[in-house]
């Protein structure tokens, strides 16, 4: 077990508003963490801090390069992505953009890199879309393509922001099965408002509501949520795919 990221006493926000306050979090190479919490609670900000897109106003974030790796590489699946329908880019080129960091940006793509893109597309179940225009894809195809882009570089850490938002439940299930498989090779942090959905896949749960509360297992119940001051959908565990929502008053 290696520590990849260490966040210490970190405060961050936008435009003078504090989204995260004094949080602590360590991410290890075999982690599969579900991040839950209310809207506006700072879940996306946490991912952006880890990605380096938002600078902390206080505290620190440290990246530890695993032994033998040359650079720290984070895969990212954004929450919302709507490309212009006419945007002139193919699925293959979108996926290849995931390799940007690891290559000389002036060179054109090699056969090996294109084969790698194809391999990832096969893994995502969409090899036939390789030459299709990205803007013409359906919601599920878009998510698969963007996930392929996130993992093509074999990152040490994969961040996903609400991967189930624009896709149906069948695809969401497939996606999480995929993630479970991927979690053997990389650390994963997945943000979701749907605690019930992710709790059956992830190893641990963290609730972000300005503060961060880390729950060392994937079991969550009413008491835990209450203790965490984490106002989200309540769920029942079991094999039947349903949710029972508590009364909101």
């Amino acid at each position: 077990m290696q520590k990849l990221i260490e966040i210490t006493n970190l405060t961050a926000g936008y435009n003078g508003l504090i989204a995260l306050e004094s949080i602590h979090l360590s991410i290890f190479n075999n982690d599969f963490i579900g991040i839950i919490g209310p809207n506006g609670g700072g879940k996306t900000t946490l991912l952006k801090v880890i990605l380096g897109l938002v600078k902390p106003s206080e505290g620190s974030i440290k990246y530890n390069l695993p032994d033998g790796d040359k650079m720290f590489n984070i895969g990212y699946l954004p929450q919302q992505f709507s490309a212009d329908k006419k945007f002139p880019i193919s699925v293959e080129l979108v996926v290849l953009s995931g390799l940007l960091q690891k290559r000389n940006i002036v060179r054109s793509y090699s056969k090996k890199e294109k084969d790698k893109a194809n391999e990832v597309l096969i893994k995502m179940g969409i090899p036939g879309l390789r030459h299709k225009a990205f803007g013409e894809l359906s919601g599920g195809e878009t998510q698969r393509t963007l996930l392929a882009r996130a993992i093509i570089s074999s990152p040490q850490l994969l961040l996903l922001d609400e991967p189930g938002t624009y896709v149906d439940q069948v695809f969401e299930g497939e996606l999480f099965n995929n993630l479970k498989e991927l979690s053997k090779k990389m650390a994963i942090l997945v943000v979701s408002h749907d605690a019930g959905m992710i709790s059956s896949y992830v190893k641990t749960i963290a609730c972000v509501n300005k503060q961060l509360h880390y729950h060392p297992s994937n079991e969550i119940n009413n008491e835990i949520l209450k203790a965490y001051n984490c106002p989200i959908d309540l769920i029942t565990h079991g094999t039947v795919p349903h949710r029972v929502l508590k009364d909101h008053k």
Partner: protein
Amino acid sequence: MAELFENEFFINALLAAVLASISCGLIGTYIVSRRIVFMSGGITHASFGGIGIGYFLGINPILGAAIFAVISALGVEYFTKKAELRNDSVIAMLWAFGMATGIIFIYITPGYAPNLMSYLFGNILTVSAHDILFMVILTSVIVLVFALFVNIILYISFDEEFARIKNIPIQFFNYLLISLVALTVVINIKVVGIILVLALLTIPQNIANTLTMNYKKIILYSVLFGFIGLIAGLLGAFYLDIPSGASIVFTLVIMLAIVKVFKRFVASLGKDFN
């Protein structure tokens, strides 16, 4: 038609057409795919302020326009990102401010009043050897930038945040590209004028995008369609005795209409990527 080629004005016009179609083909593909056509329009009109100041100070108005346009471009890029002003409002203010500045300075310049029409609507037949030299230099820079960084330019246009995560120096490219947009507009003012230069930056690209979804092919087709439109428009202007800038734009719009209709009938012309 042979006598046309013995005319120096016409030879210069022909060279200008080649250079304009290359610079506008490349830069236009960038602004169309990134949806910054309106921003480019703002910069174009702001450059008129530079023309006015150029007249007032007695320097080459095109040089004045170039400086003014680049400063405006960098300003728009800076203010919309850093100062959190509304992007489209900044552009509209700059647009009007540039035009107002130009008119004031031309008005207070003593003596001879310049022919404003030639800046607003252009005249490809007035392009000088000097202008051609500027065009050659800028077009070479643009071709070089695209030859080296075409994929980066495509990725930044597609998803700037992701490119930033992948350690691409976004800021550098944004400032570089918007400066090239400004300079492209300025060197083409003589060709089609301030009011019509947007046509050269958007119509060929939209004709091309009707036929392909491949970025590099859109660039190539845009250069080709831009050149055809410029030459056909120029000949139309010559034989029908109408202003060349307007004739070129008119020709491009007709080409777009023809290709759109043609595309409808030939379904097999596809969105290929090969």
